[in-house]
């Protein structure tokens, strides 16, 4: 075996399980060892502040100046020419201060505003490009140009997961395109597993339609299926031996084993029927507007509880070139209550302290208008927020200029954000590396500065 294949993982392998066919070569047993439980929990680099992540990803570029970045001058100068651009467009939404910290949050998030003292608003985000596909890829992988592992895959590679009967990285209703949950050159087991699809913001997990299809075999008992899977494993391991080096086959072997274990675990974890009515009402499960996203948020909490390391919750349609007012009202009405409920619920279970909850889009929007009721993409300055997981609540970190166009103070690039997330998880972003094609790769490439100021 080539020395470059010996990753940090492989030094920590557990023994092989499963029936080894006598007929198959002894080498297959070696091959089996190589892939044995790469999901087992691994010690972090230092004491972590957070143990798991729930990432609320908003596709389309939510407007920061209408939500979490209060810009009084923008309102005052509404309609004035902005240099080189269309006229400034004041926010149609009112900002008020909330909580003891007095964080300014717009009227779009009445319920979330009740958690102001838990939120760390980062008003100084910026990213390299104002185009959706590139910016989305960069938000998830750090790089907009090449295929690189996603944040969730890196986290799982670094820390393993607490429950090896579930994927360690799950993405609920992802939009098209696998790069946001891909593992690129990292072993395939670190890839995110998509559950549910994004269709009109509807999410079916736990609604009786079945979150994952084919979760049970119609003909075989688990015992008989185990006999079959051992045989499949034997065939695959033989191929792996013949191929000598074939990470994708390793990934296939691991995915069958995980799939087998998931059959027991998934239906139970994603079945929200057992939740008390008070919890269902808290999230707004039975409300037509909030129901879809509520289901995702509640599922996320259940997955977090079950030990999943990285959970991504997706929501689309934030690209408000036009119809800004009604569009934002609709979207925020869909997510405000479920997110507030998620924070509340985690707190009640004493899980918020070590669960990092993050809300972000791929970029923000311009302070100047597009037509009379819309905004264009803006990568130079935008906002996201974090809560729980060792971040300082009630903090407004960094800032944009007077109108919200450009990040000016404590600027936070995607690389800095990634470095900070890994830091909260107990990982040094400069040391979390994977050797591929003769080079050590990092999530943050050669960049990234941890924003210590947001750490509680």
């Amino acid at each position, binding site marked *: 075996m*080539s020395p470059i294949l010996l990753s940090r993982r492989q030094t920590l392998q557990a023994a092989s399980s499963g029936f080894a*066919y*006598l*007929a*198959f*070569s002894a080498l297959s047993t070696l091959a089996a060892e190589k892939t044995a439980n790469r999901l087992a929990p691994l010690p972090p680099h230092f004491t972590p502040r957070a143990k798991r992540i729930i990432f609320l990803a908003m596709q389309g570029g939510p407007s920061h100046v209408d939500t979490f970045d209060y810009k009084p001058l923008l309102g005052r100068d509404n309609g004035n020419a902005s240099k080189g651009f*269309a006229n400034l467009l004041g926010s149609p939404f009112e900002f008020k201060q909330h909580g003891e910290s007095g964080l300014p949050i717009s009227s779009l998030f009445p319920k979330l505003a009740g958690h102001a003292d838990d939120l760390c608003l980062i008003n100084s985000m910026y990213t390299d*490009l104002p185009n959706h596909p590139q910016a989305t890829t960069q938000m998830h992988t750090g790089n907009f*140009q090449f295929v690189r592992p996603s944040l969730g895959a890196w986290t799982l590679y670094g820390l393993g997961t607490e429950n090896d009967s579930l*994927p360690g990285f799950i993405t609920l209703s992802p939009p*098209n*395109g696998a790069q946001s949950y*891909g593992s690129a050159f990292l072993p*395939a087991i670190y*890839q*995110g*597993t998509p559950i549910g699809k994004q*269709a009109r913001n509807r999410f079916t997990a736990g609604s009786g339609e079945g979150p*994952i*299809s*084919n*979760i049970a*075999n*119609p*003909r*075989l008992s688990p*015992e*008989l*299926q185990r*006999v*079959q899977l051992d*045989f*499949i494993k034997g*065939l*695959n391991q*033989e*191929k792996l031996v013949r*191929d000598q*080096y*074939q990470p*994708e*086959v390793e*990934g*296939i*072997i691991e*995915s*069958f084993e995980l*799939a*087998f274990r*998931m059959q027991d675990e998934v239906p139970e974890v994603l079945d929200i029927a057992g939740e008390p009515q008070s919890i269902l009402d808290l999230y707004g499960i039975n409300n037509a507007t909030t129901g879809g996203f509520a289901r995702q948020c509640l599922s996320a909490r259940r997955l977090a509880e079950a030990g999943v390391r990285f959970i991504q919750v997706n929501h689309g349609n934030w690209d408000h070139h*036009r*119809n800004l007012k009604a569009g934002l009202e609709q979207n925020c009405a869909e997510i405000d209550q479920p997110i507030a409920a998620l924070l509340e619920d985690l707190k009640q279970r004493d899980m918020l302290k070590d669960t990092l909850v993050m809300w972000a889009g791929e970029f923000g929007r311009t302070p100047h208008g*597009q*037509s*009379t*009721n819309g905004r*264009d993409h803006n990568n130079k300055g935008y906002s996201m927020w974090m809560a729980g997981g060792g971040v300082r609540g009630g903090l407004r970190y960094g800032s944009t200029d007077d109108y919200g166009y450009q990040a000016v103070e404590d600027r936070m690039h995607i690389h800095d954000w990634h470095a900070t997330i890994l830091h909260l998880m107990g990982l040094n972003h400069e040391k979390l590396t994977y050797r*591929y*094609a*003769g080079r050590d790769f990092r999530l943050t490439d050669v960049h990234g500065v941890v924003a210590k100021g947001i750490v509680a």
Partner: protein
Amino acid sequence: MKLSPSLTLLPFALAAFSISSARSQEMSMKEEATDEQIAFFEKKIRPALIKHCYECHSSEGDKIKGGLLLDAREVTRRGGDSGPAVVPFDLAESLLYTAITYEDSTLEMPPKHRLEAEVVADFKTWIEMGAPDPREQVSKTKEVQHYTNTIDLDKGREHWAYQAPSPQTVPAPKNKEWGQNAIDAFLAVAHDEHGLTPAADAEPRTLLRRLSFDLTGLPPDPAQVEAFVSAYTESPDSAIATAVSAALSSDRFGERWGRHWLDLARYAESSGKEVNATFPDAWRYRDYVIDSFNTDKPLDRFITEQLAGDLLPYENAKERATNLVATGFLAIGTKNLNEQSSRQFRFDLVDEQIDTTTQALLGTTVSCARCHDHKFDPIPMSDYYAMAGIFLSTETLYGTPNGLQSRRATDLVELPFAEKSLAGIPLADLLDMEFRRVTLEEQVETLLAEQREQRQSNRNGEGVQNAVIRILATRNQLGVVEGQLLTYDDAGGRRDLAMGVRDRDEPFDSQILIRGEEDNPTEERAPRGFLQVVKTGDESPIPSHQSGRLELAGWITSPENPLTARVYVNRVWLWLFGEGLVSSVDNFGTTGEAPSHPELLDYLALRLVELDWSVKDLIREIVSSRAYRMSSDYDADLFAKDPENRLLWRANKRRLDAESLRDATLAVSGRIDLERPLGSAVAAAGVGFIGRTIPEASFENESPHRSVYLPIVRGVVPESLALFDFADPSLTAGKREITTVPSQALYLMNSDFVIEAAEAMAKTLVADAGLRGAALAREAFYRAYSRPPTEAETLATQQYVERFLAAAAGESLGPEEARLLALTTFCQSLLASAEFRYLN
């Protein structure tokens, strides 16, 4: 400003404002008003507007409702939050008219009282005469905006991809033994340069499996493998030549290579997005693509037909029909059918056409220049709008039913000839449908009347809300029935329709829109044309009476266009080797990747033109190379030098794409139906809305036909394809992603499709072939892997069956049942295994 001759002849031309008017694009030629018309406006319309509308819709008023101003021409036409208030000549599009007629219960104006019938009639007359309106903006006058090009085209042309491919001398590598043809020579010199040695030839069985999947998307059957092995022993070259010829002349070739093209053409059978209306006639384009590859239609002709088939000369009705169906390429994209502004819709549709055309054919993202000059590539906005003019001068015909949320229905193309027609319906059913239409119409009327009454009696709340929902639902049903009726002739026969395009009567150049905003045009119009960075020297001028699509096709397929042939041969390379010479296959711009073998890329591009754009000949040359024969065996030293195999020192191990995996599963189980089905499940479902009038579940039952014939509904791609990284059918997708997730394993372990295929395979092995023991294992492995099992595998198979039966003894299964289940699960294991899914 240039005035058309017809315009200058008119006594009172309002051309000056027509150019700057937001809504003038398609109207500019018609927008002139006579003195009488202006007088009509002043006498009838202006006073009515002031009296009934200005209170809430004037810039002088206290409150502006719905974002709508009606106190100047431009703002009136632009409209408010709901869309344009007045569209000249078009009552249906004019929301002001809809509002004052109280036709739409969600939009009734003025809110407190209905206008007198006479006033309503005046508005109708006014809009139908073109809504002449002399009112200039009263408040802030808009600055005249100009566009300035910031792109240095000469500098841009320095990028390798915009320079003509240069003729190549075939190089002389050190190792003269290895090479088979020129392709090998280019690869071998790169090997020499980097101290790499090419892998030995693959085993003949491996090679035939590779060839068979690459060219036909199906595995060879054991008899073919055996015949190939013995021919290969005689002469590898002639064995390969024979196998290649057989594959290229099989109809399976077009199904495989046509599907590759359909990825580029973002082929789907529904409009996608929120409305997701069916495209019941899209399958004709699919069949056209498959047939074109089977007949080896030269690529330049193939492209020309798809962009401008309707403008090509023809000798007979059949040729005409083929040419028309080809233009479906431009019509099958996603559409936002509930867009309220027709102008916005048009620009979005054109953008989608530009995006697909330039990415699929030129590997260039021209759409990035819609709102600003391209940030990376030498493409100014004016180039974007030059192309936009071509497509704006084109009418896209895609059908879809009318409804309140689906406002963009069009005609379809009536074909003068059809080899195959879909089944019609009995006359009685047609009459029923007609009756249903009339009934629904009456229902809508009744509901509207009820609702009006409710409103006037000032009852609010739920009752009104429910009525609105009922009206919407009934109107949608009506739209669907109307759409269905249009698909039949008077006798109930199914009309032969296709999706496609035609030129508009009066082609025009597009304005350049600031930030891409449809209501923010500059003074300048971009003369219809192509990308300036690519000059072919043989461009034909665009005639004023045509859209320019034919000339666009001529420019794209010019042998002097540096992109077209390069982009396509690179795609072919990807489909045969697993990676492109340029790995960013859809992006040859400056942010794309540089070619690994630039000389080879140029050689192949020029060669394609030399071969008269014959795709089959190009493929034949590539698969006849020694490089294509290489084994995929691992070598630690060489791997250390080139881990990603960019210099092709061995064959790449490649995963089968979703269609090949599914087709192979059907093939080895003996269940595959290789006949082409007539139409598609979407054609059978007919006109309607996915998820509303047509349940998503209608497409769940999978036929045993090849995967290329499965219904491709946007958002409802069949599970067997979607789980295995099928291309997103909304966008040009030159390269499939490769994911390995447990949901795939669950599908292979537990899905009815795989289990039923495995059972069919087990039954044929036992019943048809009468096999057991080692012979059964041999046949099963041979079918699945194109090779006999190793001794260890034979033994393991026997152990498996024994072990399974032993474990099953504890369960309530009869002996026959248990044995069939053991064999079924054995076959399923082969289908689920990695080797079945991978090409060595």
